[in-house]
């Protein structure tokens, strides 16, 4: 029993750490609606800055000052990011800011590598709190007790700031309704900068306070951001007390899982310690299914687009059709040019697969208005489906290429059914949770999926097992897939999907079952993503859980946003640009991540409507005789 109690105490310390990262994210999320991927990077910066300062400044005072200094410095960096970067793109289509913060992650990661080097940096113990105290016959770190106290203290301070000051009242008002606030004449931009700085400062503080517990290392950004999102969403967006309760629940559940260890239920043995791999996402999925707005969140009003409304769909004009035909024809002759461009075929296969994947995501994200953050789940289900149909069921490539998309579609039937009951960021987070659950199953199920190593030896049938043949196979299937997706967007169903996105009330009032339309859209997108996954696995010959990872999902988002979510060519342009950039940039410099991030930042600032969106606008502008589409 005493071991259980002390584990709960461990959980409390963990909860404080979690809460500190999440609180800032929740604030920023609540007020600006920005999905700030760079929040984990700010947290990481907090640890590194605190490390450097505390190594230079001697004594206890120096150490504690370092922590505070680090928090303030990170807050300052946050303000800078908001003012220099994000402020310029608030008018862009929804979620576009995500792309900018994604680029920041890359830049900050390489910046940290450049400044601090690759080696893990373990900080000093906190002066005065080095040792442990005896609790229930066990040594409990004094510093953990301090953390247990600091979490609620920060909660109280932030709460006081939000409820007892005019600034806080405005922030809370902004969380409810930003338009209303601007109508009242509040100078919004400074308010938002302030919120961003405060949120960043909390991230920095959270990082700095981890210094005595874990070494500063380059993986911290990605490892912390997932947890932070889970806590924010479970607690309810914008709710600081919610974040605290959520952090508490998740940290305690983890501690209990570790305490339980391996438990036998009759013939079955469950390793709860291994369950910690995914437990937070399980919690999030359950909470969102039961309470669609998190524990302490309120239903969101229908989000009002801050950017320009999307233009009506126009069928492709003559020039665009000819361009598409020329492009496909141009690709079809690529194999003839193998002599000059031996790599073109190889890269093209990847570009084509990326285009199909991105287009399938765009299908639900753009016209469907459902931001899936877990789209890799269907890509991965298709890929694993194809691999398993071949390895376990012994089917030939041809059959598994046909059946694998069905597998992915079935996954989308299940995940989509839950997801379409939600909307906005909560929907996005539920898809993320499902994606992570799918990933963890593939990662853990050694006997079936090959676990973390994955599976190898999944090569095409003889006739397709050379570069040229497989290229043609991919070209044909992807072109057919892209055409089908496009065709569906022009069909009554595609219109119904956009109708449901534009106005749920109106759609419902003319007999459209919006949830059902969205569900079917999910399944269709899943099928095509699955097809992309199946093509992928045969082009690589192997598969591993990466195809299901958050990174893969984020890549999809980046492609769609980079190309422009409001144009149909957007995902294709984005997929090709991003994949090609990554391939080229990675070869050109050691610091390719920073370069890639820098290029994306540049594109974000210059083309806030996405690349294809920009071209589209340009074409419209050059044709003054036709009414501007937007």
């Amino acid at each position, binding site marked *: 029993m005493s071991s259980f109690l002390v584990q709960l105490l461990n959980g409390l310390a963990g909860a404080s750490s979690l809460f500190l990262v999440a609180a800032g994210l929740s604030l920023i999320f609540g007020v600006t609606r920005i999905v700030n991927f760079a929040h984990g990077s700010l947290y990481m910066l907090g640890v590194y800055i605190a490390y450097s300062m505390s190594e230079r400044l001697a004594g206890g005072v120096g150490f504690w000052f370092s922590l505070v200094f680090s928090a303030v410095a990170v807050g300052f960096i946050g303000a800078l990011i908001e003012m220099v970067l994000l402020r310029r793109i608030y008018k862009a289509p929804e979620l576009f800011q995500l792309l900018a913060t994604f680029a920041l992650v890359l830049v900050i990661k390489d910046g940290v590598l450049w400044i601090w080097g690759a080696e893990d940096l373990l900080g000093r113990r906190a002066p005065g709190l080095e040792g442990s105290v005896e609790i229930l016959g066990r040594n409990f770190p004094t510093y953990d007790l301090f953390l247990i106290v600091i979490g609620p203290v920060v909660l109280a301070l932030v709460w006081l700031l939000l409820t007892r000051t005019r600034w806080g009242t405005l922030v809370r008002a902004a969380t409810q309704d930003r338009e209303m606030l601007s109508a009242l004449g509040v100078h919004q931009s400074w308010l938002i900068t302030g919120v961003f700085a405060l949120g960043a400062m909390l991230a920095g503080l959270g990082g700095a306070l981890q210094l005595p517990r874990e070494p500063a290392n380059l993986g911290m950004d990605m490892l912390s951001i997932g947890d932070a999102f889970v806590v924010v969403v479970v607690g309810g967006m914008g709710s600081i007390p919610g974040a605290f309760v959520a952090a508490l629940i998740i940290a305690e559940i983890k501690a209990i899982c570790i305490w339980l260890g391996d438990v036998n239920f009759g013939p079955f043995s469950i390793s709860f310690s291994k369950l910690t791999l995914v437990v937070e996402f399980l919690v999030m999925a359950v909470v969102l299914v039961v309470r669609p707005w998190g524990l302490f969140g309120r239903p969101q009003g229908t989000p009002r687009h801050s950017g320009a409304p999307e233009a009506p769909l126009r069928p492709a004009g003559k020039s665009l059709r000819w361009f598409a035909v020329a492009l496909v024809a141009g690709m079809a002759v690529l194999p003839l040019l193998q002599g000059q461009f031996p790599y073109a075929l190889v890269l093209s296969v990847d570009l084509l697969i990326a285009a199909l994947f991105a287009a399938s995501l765009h299908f639900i994200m753009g016209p469907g208005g459902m931001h899936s953050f877990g789209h890799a789940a269907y890509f991965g289900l298709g890929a694993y489906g194809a691999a398993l149909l071949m390895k376990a069921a012994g089917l030939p490539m041809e059959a598994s290429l046909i059946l694998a998309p069905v597998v992915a579609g079935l996954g989308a039937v299940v995940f989509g059914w839950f997801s379409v009951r939600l909307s906005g960021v909560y929907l996005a987070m539920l898809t993320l949770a499902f994606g992570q659950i799918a990933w963890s199953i593939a990662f853990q199920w050694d006997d079936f999926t090959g676990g973390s190593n994955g599976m190898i030896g999944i090569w095409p049938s003889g006739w397709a097992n050379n570069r040229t043949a497989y290229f043609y196979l991919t070209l044909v299937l992807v072109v057919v897939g892209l055409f089908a997706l496009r065709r569906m967007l022009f069909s009554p169903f595609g219109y119904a999907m956009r109708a449901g996105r*534009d106005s749920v009330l*109106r759609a*419902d009032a003319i007999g459209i079952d919006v949830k059902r339309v969205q569900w*079917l859209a999910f399944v269709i997108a899943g099928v095509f993503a699955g097809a992309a996954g199946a093509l992928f696995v045969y082009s690589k010959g192997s598969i591993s859980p990466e195809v299901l990872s958050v990174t893969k999902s984020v890549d999809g988002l980046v492609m769609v946003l980079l190309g422009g979510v409001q144009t149909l060519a957007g995902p294709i342009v984005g997929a090709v640009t991003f994949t090609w950039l990554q391939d080229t940039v990675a070869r050109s410099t050691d610091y390719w991540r920073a370069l890639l991030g820098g290029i994306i930042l540049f594109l974000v600032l210059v083309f806030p409507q996405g690349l294809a969106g920009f071209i589209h606008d340009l074409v419209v502008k050059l044709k003054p005789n036709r009414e501007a589409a937007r």
Partner: protein
Amino acid sequence: MSLLQIRGLQKSFGGVKAVDGIDFDVAAGELLALIGPNGAGKSTTFNMVNGQLRASGGSVKLDGRELVGLKPREIWKMGVGRTFQIAETFASLTVVENVQMALISSHGKLYSLWSRAASAYRNEALELLDQVGMKADADRPCSALAYGDVKRVELAIALANDPKLLLMDEPTAGMAPKERNDLMALTKRLVVERKLAVLFTEHSMDVVFAYADRMIVLARGRLIAAGSGEEIRNHPKVQEVYFGTGKTFEKPLAQEEAAA
């Protein structure tokens, strides 16, 4: 028998009775106004008829069939169209596509994945737009229209499945006086031509008295009066409820008489 029968309709939100047992009927070919001060329960009543809110008690019958418990889209299928206080259209579709969408739905073609939506029922849609005077704007994006025009498009959408009953929530809110009269005149014409029943709420009393065949008055969730314009104007309870704003009853009418 009247087309719409409402009996003992109730709605409470956490113990507060927003609508407290009201009865009224709407007949085919009748333009019935539902009026009352702010917070009287007009929108709540409206949303219960349309299915957007579920009634806590009572019944709503259309041609003798119970509507309570049905979803908006099911009620729509039974022949109830509606417009919203703040016009709800599909911003990323063109004007004609908005109407086509409703037609596609009423023909049960929503899940058609391969045909082209742009050519589906286009002529019918254009005809409907013609009726509301929006045919010339058919291929403009709906997001580019003036608000008054959006309201007219919304009316065309609502008419797409040839409804028996049309619910209009403050149809003229946010419109200029000229636009108001045009829209209501159009509505009146439709009522006559199609034998349509219309239930509408309205803040603007000049519109109500000029166009409604009959009106019912809600106050604090209860129906306090029903009858013609003259009866309502002289109803003591109504004057009591509208005390202080009572003058608005006289003035627009005087203006209208002057204008006539």
